[in-house]
């Protein structure tokens, strides 16, 4: 198809678009201002009319078959215009067709073809696009067109069309002067996008081609394609044998780790074939059409190469799918052997690692598809594992190796404990700072949760180690960790786990110190170089701290030891470090998740333990800015959850709660928790919830809280105690009233106390501390409570509603239902609002 088929009116020198790259606001303003003058316009702001004109100009150029610099320049600009906005740029149907023909046009330079394809891809999905490519033999162009077609969203089955066309060329004799290597990636993309494109016979044929490319590529180097003219020396271009990455002459077949000055066509295809091998094996192995005794007649003609050079006669008789697996197996084994060589070039060394990972993954896949590979693979990977354990450079390959053992050790009846042991014990401790490894490690854990949920105790007990990944890479790993945290939590680990979570920022600081002391002279330090925690480094060396430090860095769960406080003190200079702060920010999320999981199975004993832990640890937190407040908030709400779940907690832990509420310091240092605990006492210290709740117990709590309220209200203000929040006072008053309603001898005492609140609030010392609004709040609450207590039976009904009454709450927020009830009751009692007037 030539360019002249289109007879569009040629544009008369449209204007020059000068896109303001970078587009800073100032530039954009400037360019909009200049729009009238038509000088420079930001690509996003070009109007349809202007775009049309510009397209006309390109039309003119293309129709003249002018494929020089001006056209290229215009096409570059057009690409920018269509790609710079997220909104659709309408191009005329005829113009789209013109671009298409410019792409087909044999004389078009590659640059024009590439640009046309890019523009067409950018405007896709497009309904105006019709590509004819059945006649196209140029594989490079076909690949380019496929990229346009595959971007159309498969509305008209484009993926299938591309797949069939590409398969047809791959099956047939290679077109003269064309390389098939441009087509393999297309095939790979096609099977990714649409799993049911190819038929079984096509798959079989492609299996055979892949075998040829993978296993029988030339082991001689290719010839340089540069024409040497008259002076070329034919002897100098004599190709030599392929070498290994270490320079030794290759002894076996060609792989991606084989090195030559130049590569032959089949060597390129070998590289392409291996690059898509895993995808292909998955694709061709998982089709349901497999019939083991299918009589494959075309087998003998498909693959001449493999017939001639096949070394193993037995494998030759297998159907193509099995033969490809056999070849893939040999290829991977060879890669594993080749990855052990010492590469001369650094990039090749990197490639060795990637190849090793790929090879192990493919071996695992082969074993899953065909268990007859198992024993050969097993011995190979056992040896490999031994090799990897001694060489941290290849650490990433340990994960697929472990995956293999997880998948197959049961079927193969081998004990792979040592593999997991090494993986979970050594790797996180030594390489927690490798962010890519950390990501893959956690992915590995997540993918295998179903295995670990079984009886793999090593995984569960390694959680302190796995938390090192999180402590160091908290920002990137938190969302991954949320998925695996629930697996670690059971009755036996819950307590230690909660401690670990609370100590997470401290662990970050400890890991930082660990790195500083392990690699003091590192050229590119992994830690914050602006921080110089000399005192910490010295402190960690003394034996007392050393033991705590070792405990914090323990690889396995070993129960909790008391007294990390000295370590908090020692590590204090690190608390402001950005990494520690980032980690501290994740802790509340994890605590919340922890309680969501733990409350699903926790019994009374565990709930009590957790509550005691929360009370105890609320004062023992690493001093990171804002960390304490955030954790206290979370602890408070979780304490309420625990109380609600197990109300007897208040009776069973009366000693601890009395101690906690009796300490006046707690009001100020842990105000949030304190308020919640006091509220919980008022709510749950009732015979309704626990028969063991005696009058003596209620009196005991009453006395403690009364003394406390007395202290903060009557001795105020004092220089030693800062102002306490009015909420604390109202909650204390309410709780005292609640307790009194349950032990009615106390009613006169609390009424007297409440009546004194007015004089307290009006004392000049108080008015200086509390605002008018605060005083008002306190007094209103005192009055309400006093009025309520005038009718003890109503008070009991309102303040300690029976379960039947309190369960159907009329709104969802249980915390605000009490004030609502109070408001209602006080209206009834005060008689100000007469019932009759309603």
């Amino acid at each position, binding site marked *: 198809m030539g360019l002249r088929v289109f007879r569009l009116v040629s544009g008369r020198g449209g204007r020059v678009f000068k896109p303001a*790259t970078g*587009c*800073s*606001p100032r530039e954009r303003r400037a360019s909009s201002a200049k729009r009238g003058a038509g000088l420079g316009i930001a690509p996003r702001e070009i109007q349809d009319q202007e775009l049309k004109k510009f397209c006309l100009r390109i039309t003119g150029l293309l129709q003249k078959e002018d494929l020089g610099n001006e056209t290229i320049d215009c096409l*570059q*600009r057009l690409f*920018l215009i269509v*790609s710079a906005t*997220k*909104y*659709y740029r309408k191009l005329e149907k005829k113009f789209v067709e013109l671009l298409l023909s410019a792409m087909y046009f044999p004389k078009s*330079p*590659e*640059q024009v073809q*590439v*640009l046309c*394809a*890019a523009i067409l891809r950018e*405007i*896709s*999905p497009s*309904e105006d696009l019709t590509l004819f490519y059945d006649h196209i033999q140029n594989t490079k162009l076909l*690949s380019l067109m*496929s*990229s346009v077609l*595959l*971007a*159309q*969203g*498969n509305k008209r089955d484009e993926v299938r069309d591309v797949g069939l066309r590409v398969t047809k060329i791959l099956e047939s004799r290679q077109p003269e002067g064309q390389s098939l290597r*441009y087509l*393999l*990636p*297309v095939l*790979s*993309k096609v099977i*990714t*996008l649409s799993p049911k494109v190819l038929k079984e016979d096509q798959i079989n044929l492609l299996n055979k081609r892949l075998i040829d490319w993978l296993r029988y590529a030339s082991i001689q180097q290719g010839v340089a394609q540069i024409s040497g003219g008259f002076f070329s020396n034919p002897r100098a271009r004599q190709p030599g044998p392929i070498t290994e990455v270490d320079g030794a002459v290759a002894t076996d077949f060609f792989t*991606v780790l*084989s*090195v030559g000055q*130049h590569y032959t066509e089949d060597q390129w295809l070998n*590289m392409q074939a291996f*690059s898509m091998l895993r995808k292909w094996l998955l694709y061709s192995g998982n089709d349901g059409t497999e019939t083991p005794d299918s009589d494959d007649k075309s087998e003998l003609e498909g693959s001449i190469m493999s017939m001639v050079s096949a070394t193993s006669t037995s494998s030759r008789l297998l159907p193509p799918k099995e033969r490809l697996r056999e070849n893939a197996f040999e290829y991977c084994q060879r890669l594993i052997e080749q990855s052990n060589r010492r590469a001369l070039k650094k990039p*090749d060394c990197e*490639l060795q690692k*990637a190849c090793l*990972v790929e090879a192990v993954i493919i071996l695992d896949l082969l074993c899953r598809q065909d268990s007859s590979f198992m024993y050969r693979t097993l011995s190979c990977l056992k040896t490999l594992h031994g090799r990897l354990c001694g060489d941290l450079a290849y650490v*990433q390959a340990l994960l697929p190796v472990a995956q293999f053992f997880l998948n197959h050790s049961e079927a193969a009846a081998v004990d792979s404990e040592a593999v997991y042991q090494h993986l979970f014990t050594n790797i996180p401790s030594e390489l927690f700072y490798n*962010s*890519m490894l950390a*990501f*893959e490690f956690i992915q590995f854990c997540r993918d295998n949760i179903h295995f670990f949920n079984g009886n793999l105790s090593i995984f569960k007990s390694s959680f302190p180690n796995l938390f090192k990944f999180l402590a160091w890479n908290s*920002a*990137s790993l938190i*969302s991954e960790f949320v998925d695996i945290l629930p697996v670690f939590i059971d009755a036996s680990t819950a307590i230690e786990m909660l401690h670990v979570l609370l100590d997470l920022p401290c662990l970050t600081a400890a890991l930082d110190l660990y790195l500083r002391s392990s690699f003091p002279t590192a050229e590119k330090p992994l830690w*914050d170089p*602006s921080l110089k925690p000399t005192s910490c480094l010295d402190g960690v060396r003394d034996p007392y701290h050393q033991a705590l430090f070792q405990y914090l860095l323990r690889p396995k769960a070993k129960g909790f030891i008391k007294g990390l406080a000295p370590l908090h003190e020692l590590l204090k200079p690190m608390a402001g470090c*950005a990494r520690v702060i*980032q980690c501290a920010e994740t802790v509340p999320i994890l605590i919340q998740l922890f309680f969501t999981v733990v409350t699903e199975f926790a019994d009374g004993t565990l709930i009590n333990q957790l509550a005691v832990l929360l009370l105890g640890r609320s004062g023992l937190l690493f001093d990171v800015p804002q960390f304490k407040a955030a954790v206290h908030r979370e602890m408070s709400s979780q304490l309420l959850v625990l109380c609600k779940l197990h109300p007897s907690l208040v009776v069973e832990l009366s000693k601890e709660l009395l101690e906690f509420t009796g300490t006046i310091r707690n009001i100020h240092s842990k105000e949030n928790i304190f308020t919640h605990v006091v509220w919980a006492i008022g709510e749950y210290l009732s015979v309704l919830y626990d028969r063991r709740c005696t009058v003596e117990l209620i009196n005991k709590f009453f006395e403690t809280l009364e003394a406390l309220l007395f202290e903060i209200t009557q001795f105020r203000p004092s220089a030693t105690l800062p102002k306490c929040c009015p909420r604390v006072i109202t909650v204390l008053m309410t709780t005292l009233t609640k307790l009194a309603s349950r032990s009615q001898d106390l009613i006169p005492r609390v009424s007297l106390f409440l009546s004194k609140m007015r004089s307290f609030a009006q004392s000049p010392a108080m008015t200086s501390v509390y605002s008018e609004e605060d005083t008002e709040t306190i007094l209103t609450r005192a009055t309400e409570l006093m009025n309520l207590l005038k009718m003890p039976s109503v008070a009991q009904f309102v303040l300690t509603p029976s379960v039947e009454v309190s369960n159907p709450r009329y709104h969802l927020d249980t915390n605000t239902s009490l004030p609502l009830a109070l408001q209602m009751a006080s209206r009834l009692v005060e008689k100000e609002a007469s019932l009759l007037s309603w």
Partner: protein
Amino acid sequence: MVHAFLIHTLSGSGQATGDATFCRVLYSQVFGSERLPDEPGPRGPERDRLLRKEQLLAVARQAETACKLLQQASGRPPTDLLPQSSDEPIPLQDAPSGVFRLRPGDPFQEAKVVVWLRLLSLGCALVCEPHENLLLAESTLRLLTRLLLEHLKLLSSGSNVLLRGDRIEAILNHFLPQGQLLFLNDQFVQALEKELSTSLAR
């Protein structure tokens, strides 16, 4: 298989890449469009295209955040990463990079893994399928970035990334054809670089 490749600005580093507050995708290529769910309601090509662009912007923004957090954690001031002189070779090996996962439905239909790399004020990212060989993806990303630097003079002041779409396309066609990650040893890379230079020189 790689689903998409993108180059985007990194705000915060301030430089001349554009608005300080917006993350902007400068170039993107999606390799084959994602299978879209059959949802009710009208869906024209315009909406599909808008969705695709928004998805990429979402990736760019996440990469930007990840990059900022990483830099913050390293404790180094951002000025460390500003370009010195354009002649000075940039140590690509030390360029900060990372990886994160996108959950299914957010923003792509299926889960993806994003490998990103920071190049002073620009970011490059590969959106890969889950379980992609990440070592290979990372080294491919570094290779692509090196080539972009060489052939586009990506960071020098006069360079115009936006108008060199064809060069980026050519690099991707050679080194990431249709989004296929290639196991390229150094000799293969050199051979492809020669081919690339020939096609760009024309």
